[in-house]
């Protein structure tokens, strides 16, 4: 089995940190899981894209850790309403 590359390890570590930080705040965990799942489809070789998302993720993690951030909701538009 191939070992994880350094970048993969970093991404996994970020994921763990996200889950830990989101424990007491409603609404974040499903979203975190979705985002990581979607981004997992990015090719391993597309390092620029991965690193960009990683940096963005770190900034978002800082925001999440902040004590003033309380919950994540969403405004959704259903398909029937789109003209």
């Amino acid at each position, binding site marked *: 089995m191939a070992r994880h590359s350094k970048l993969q390890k970093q991404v996994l570590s970020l994921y763990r940190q996200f889950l830990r930080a989101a424990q007491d705040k*409603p609404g974040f965990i499903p979203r975190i899981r979705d985002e990581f799942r979607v981004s997992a489809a990015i090719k391993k070789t597309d390092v620029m894209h991965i690193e960009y998302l990683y940096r963005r993720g770190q900034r978002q993690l800082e925001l999440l850790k902040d004590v003033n951030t309380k919950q994540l909701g969403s405004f959704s538009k259903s398909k029937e309403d789109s003209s």
Partner: protein
Amino acid sequence: MAAVCAASRVLGRKIVSSKALPVVWQTSNRKLHFSVYGKGGDAKVSDAISTQYPVVDHEFDAVVVGAGGAGLRAAFGLSEAGFNTACVTKLFPTRSHTVAAQGGINAALGNMEEDDWRWHFYDTVKGSDWLGDQDAIHYMTEQAPAAVVELENFGMPFSRTEEGRIYQRAFGGQSLKFGKGGQAHRCCCVADRTGHSLLHTLYGRSLRYDTSYFVEYFALDLLMEDGECKGVIALCMEDGSIHRFRAKNTVIATGGYGRTYFSCTSAHTSTGDGNAMVTRAGLPCQDLEFVQFHPTGIYGAGCLITEGCRGEGGILINSEGERFMERYAPNAKDLASRDVVSRSMTIELREGRYNILNLYYNINLLFCAQNTVITHKDGEDTVVPGLYACGESGCASVHGANRLGANSLLDLVVFGRACALTIAETDTPGEKLSPLKPNAGEASVANMDKIRFANGSTRTSEIRLNIYSFQQSIVWNTDLVETLELQNLMLNGVQTIVSAEARTESRGAHAREDFKDRVDEYDYSKSLQGQVKKPFEQHWRKHTLSYVDPKTGKVTLEYRPVIDNSLNAEECAAIPPAIRSY
């Protein structure tokens, strides 16, 4: 909707519905459904969802919108007082338009000659053409020396005299001994980059406090419920997420709206976002018709030559080589107040002896008195709880009909600090927030969604000729942000136009060819003996309040009297109106 408004007028309060759609939005029946991930029924809805906007909720004690001079001062003032503060800004703090200010800050320090803040008070009241609220002016001019000393203690590198005191230069409209003692030198400056220094000093100082900065977040709207302001909703430009900042106190310090004009000296980002947010919330803006034209702006280039040049001895000459200001303002000459100089230049231009003017600064934007946003019903001012304004967006009552040069940087620091002090007096940190409807801000997101997917034939920029659909991602969608800014500009513009058309007089920066004189309650050019005071409806020494109807885009105007008494009549007597000449 109309019925609700009518009923609320009778009750004496303005009720604002959080579902009200703003004026430049067409009625949309796209309803957005709010939910918290993982709570209740998401799985069922997910198949039918076409677009989803994640909304992060934050809770703070206070949120400041804008990080220019006034915003930074208010933000760290609040942090200093122990409030958990957020500062939401669409620009990095040091890129706010304050950085472009050149002239200086007026303060009666008395370093160049003997000076008194009451003379500064007189000059500002006269400069405002008696449309300024004298209590606010009293506050500002009395606090000015302390404000400048505070800045100096923060490390602002003022220019110095030989004795090492702060150098003060002459500036437009400043005089000694209530106008009788000649030109005053009271503008404290840092060479010709006072605004730049000020902003960088404030920014450096703000890093000592634990304000949370949300940089490159575009504030969309205020969160209003039951006539109270409960926070702000903003779009994070970096990742397209929506953020709702709930706070008991919101301070608007978003600056002016120079970009409504083709030729202006304001940054591309001066789009009056705060004014538009307030208008969409159903609150009035005050005196938007007084837009200042800087005498030494350079048409087309979008920059200007600072008034400081004239303070250091520069003079204006027409194409015949004549120093024409001597004819229009025999005492102050080139250092007369800006509107006088601009008007003189217009006359010279008309008579074929000069070149074109340029827009400089917007005065009298958001309605406010000592920083609180108010509505005026049935002859009385009432406060909108939780909402404050400072800086160029909240400067109405201080500058009146015309702003004197170097009073605006002063306005920023004094009222930025005053906002923080007022909030500290009325509130305590850590107070529990009042409940907010879960779908607060839905209308703003709906509007943004509509713009994002708009597919009309005219581009926002109207410059590019090819017709292709622009990128519709939510991340770094600068077209989307430009369109939102355009909406805001239009709201500001329409209020300026209607207010200006209605005001049938010339006062301060508002000059009309068809109504050349000032119309006050008495005719001050003659003796007051035997004159009958005109009723409120028949004269123009009053503030304009403009509202825009969300559904039709119609502007309604109301009027509010000018406050003529100073804060303390013994310390500083109010100045009765008189004919204004320099």
